[in-house]
């Protein structure tokens, strides 16, 4: 279970390889990469600046990873979330879950992403064409997060 909050980009190959090295009972490794899009609440997004709450962010990400580990039989999991100034195409987040069986890895990875969206203290400022807008929380993210509220 690894959680990191960092400004710089990550090496997906190295991160994923580290998750399963020497763990030969792992059959499936599912990962999610979130990317900055060139559209959003602004029609045209030239940059996105991510702000977070140091101290609280680490705790929440750790809790989310722990919750995933309680719900599924994972051999390892990873959350790397970036902050700071990003541009379209840049990577925002890497989430990964490794398990003996692929279904657990898929479910755990999607769970972590859904909870990140609604629980992790990050805020996104979109800028483009002279406009700036703080991204608002999405109803469908709230719904996606809520479907995990009953433990399986």
């Amino acid at each position, binding site marked *: 279970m690894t959680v990191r909050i960092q400004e710089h980009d990550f090496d997906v190959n190295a991160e994923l390889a580290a998750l399963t090295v020497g763990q030969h009972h792992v059959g499936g490794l599912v990962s999610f990469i979130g990317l900055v899009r060139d559209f959003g609440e602004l029609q045209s997004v030239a940059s996105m600046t991510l702000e977070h*709450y140091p*101290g609280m962010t680490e705790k929440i990400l750790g809790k989310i990873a722990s919750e995933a580990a309680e719900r599924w039989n994972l051999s390892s999991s990873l959350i790397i979330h970036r902050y700071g100034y990003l541009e379209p195409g840049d990577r925002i987040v890497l989430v990964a879950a490794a398990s003996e069986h692929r279904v657990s890895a898929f479910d755990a990875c999607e769970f972590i*992403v859904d909870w990140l969206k609604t629980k992790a203290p*990050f805020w996104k400022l979109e800028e483009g064409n002279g406009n700036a807008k*703080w991204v608002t929380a999405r109803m469908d*993210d709230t719904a996606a997060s809520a479907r995990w509220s009953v433990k399986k």
Partner: protein
Amino acid sequence: MKLLYFAWVRQQTGVNEECVTPPNHVNNVAALIDWLRERGPQYARAFEDVSALRVAINHELVDFDAKLSKDDEVALFPPVTGG
């Protein structure tokens, strides 16, 4: 008491963080927000509509009726948009 502001709350108050000593009757989040509004027009504007305001005490999300202690770290921010 340490206060932290994030995203548009930070932009509107014009402050990242500050230490305050509210009077004794300010003993929960709702009372703190009422008290903050009196501190100036930028605070009044930041806390005009609290429907989209979220509050954490010592890194835990809380409701507006949560009790406060003088050593608490209280953060005020919009709904999160991580991931």
